[in-house]
């Protein structure tokens, strides 16, 4: 480790090391300030929030805001919708992409090549500007304000198909061949043999997908409509932000609680997350 330190072109002296850890620690604190501000405000009384004097930590933490928050059916609905959206859209989109990516390289068919070219062409069309034409389709289907309107249009990711195709190109053939010799068909082979061996790679995409859809904003904003049925937690929070709420404490508590699931995913699956960014990072 010391060898690496010297080589990476850094100062050898212990003074330099102390300096480096000091800078890193100060920056780490700066990065954590927004979390501190959020939790502090969530627990402050409204008097403290509007006070002109700086309060480091609330004198009387307002823990009762948590039960109050969970007594609000709108918030519970929003949490539930976000959870359904994150789980269903991530798992389905990965399954769909894995199937398609596998077919492109491992099921010999004359259409495989043109279909691959189609995937590449679609890759170039950005998903963000598609919200206008997608709204038109979803509105025509009568899916505005519904969960399927929230979830279904995002299930078909050409980029994920491309990633799975690249993954299966290098997948060891011997495993499948053993299954075929035993008389298994394509479906059996895929679900019993191939897909279970894809799980580490799929997990990386799963973590990215879960965090991405929990935090998604533009499409849920377009689809949510006025009703409760498709309101995600992000839209719930944003509606208070843009409508100039006065219950700041409640809003901050709602924001804090909305972070808990995503932070759990982040900490438990962080190693997959880092691997996922290594695999997909440069495409964004």
């Amino acid at each position, binding site marked *: 480790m010391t060898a*690496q330190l*010297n*080589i990476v*072109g850094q*100062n050898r002296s212990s003074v*330099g090391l102390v300096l480096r850890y000091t*800078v890193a620690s100060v*920056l*780490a604190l700066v990065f954590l300030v*927004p979390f501190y*501000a*959020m939790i502090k*405000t969530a627990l402050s009384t409204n008097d403290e929030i509007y*006070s002109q004097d*700086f309060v480091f930590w609330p004198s009387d933490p307002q823990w009762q805001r948590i039960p109050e928050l969970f007594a609000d059916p709108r918030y519970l609905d929003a949490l539930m919708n976000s959870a359904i959206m994150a789980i269903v859209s991530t798992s389905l989109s990965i399954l769909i992409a894995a199937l398609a990516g596998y077919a492109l390289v491992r099921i*010999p068919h004359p*259409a*495989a090549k043109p279909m691959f070219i189609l995937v590449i062409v*679609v*890759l*170039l*069309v*950005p998903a*963000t*500007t*598609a919200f*206008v034409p997608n709204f*038109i*389709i979803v509105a*025509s289907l009568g899916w505005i304000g519904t969960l399927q309107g929230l979830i279904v249009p995002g299930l*078909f990711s050409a980029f994920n*198909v*491309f*990633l799975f*195709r*690249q993954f299966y*190109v*290098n*997948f060891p053939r011997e495993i499948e061949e053993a299954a*075929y010799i035993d008389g298994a*068909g*394509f479906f059996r082979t895929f679900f019993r043999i191939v897909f279970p061996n894809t799980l580490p*790679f799929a997990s990386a995409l799963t973590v990215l997908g879960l965090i991405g859809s*929990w*935090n998604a*904003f*533009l499409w849920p*904003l*377009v689809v949510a409509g006025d009703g409760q049925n498709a309101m995600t937690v992000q839209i719930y*929070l*944003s509606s208070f932000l843009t409508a100039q709420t006065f219950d*700041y404490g409640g809003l*901050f508590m709602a924001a804090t609680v909305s972070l808990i699931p*995503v932070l759990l*995913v982040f900490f438990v699956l962080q190693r997959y997350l*880092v691997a996922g*960014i*290594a695999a997909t990072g*440069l*495409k964004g």
Partner: protein
Amino acid sequence: MSAPSATRADATAATSTRTGPTRIKGNGLAFWLFFTPFLVGLCVFTILPLIWGGTLSLFEARGTVLPTKFVGLDNFRGFLVDTAFLQSLRTFLVFAVFIVPVTMAVSLALAVLVNGLPRFQTFFRSVFFLPTACSYVVACVVWRLSLFNGLESGIVNQLLGVVGLDSISAWLSASPYWWIVLVTVRLWLQVGFYMLLFLAGLQAIPTQMYEAASVDGLNPGGFTMFRLITLPQLRTTSAAVLLLLLIASFQAFDEFYNLTGNNPETRPPLVYLYNIALGPQQDFGRGSAGALVLTAIMVLAGLLQTWLVGFGSNDDATKRRFGFLRGRRRRPVDAAETETAEELEATGSTGSTGSTEKTATPEKEVRR
């Protein structure tokens, strides 16, 4: 995790040489059973919207998603001469001028800092990366109502007080100040992600290069070493990060919508488009035309990125495409690298980062 980083050349070679015997009857059916779910979704939710949107862009369609009156290219013409649209492009430019260089510099500095820590690397990496898990909305709540709330007790105003400056109460309603809020919120949210990309790039630099340079008398901790070795070696990563940042700032929506709303002076292209198509006007004709114009701009950027970076983070493909950029690398270091590479290959001092497989040797590079 090495599998997805196969080069495209590998991929095509693999498919062409190993097309595989038709072991099982019913290939045709199996292929479509596997591929149809994706294909149907693609047709309904990508291709059909494009066709429908393309059609609507030639029609008048206010408050309805059905074409009412054919207007030719009027929607496009109206869009391109709309001062509000041009203003939104200007907003993007101003935003990009701040956010892109700042994010690049900070994420590179963080990566160098974290990479130089012999212990607790994972801890610091996690802390800097943690905001990435946060949503823009949550960050906007904190930025707007706490950090930059305009009260004297707000955290940023407190800091201004510490350095002897007056509190600012109009963070989000006056021109120079709102850029500080908009840039810092995005910086906090995205910098950890780009730090990871730079960390991967740093850890792919062969340690032999640093060893050789210090044999040649460069100070291991010095800035010269950083300038002559680290920076040129990060050229591929930097170019990729630059393009990603540009594209991401062009697509900015969440923080603008939640912080400054529909203020015409701080309205990036997507917020402008959102207001045309889904605002009170519900003008789907012009909205579709606008979506096509913005899509075209981004497809061009995407083509540029594909050409430069390739798909995925494949190191070889990246190096191949950036080969032309590497011609200007310092010769002496190059020579030192090749001389010492073999001797030092077996010393195993690459560190614990699992980056050895990414260590690119000059022989592996294929120039186009």
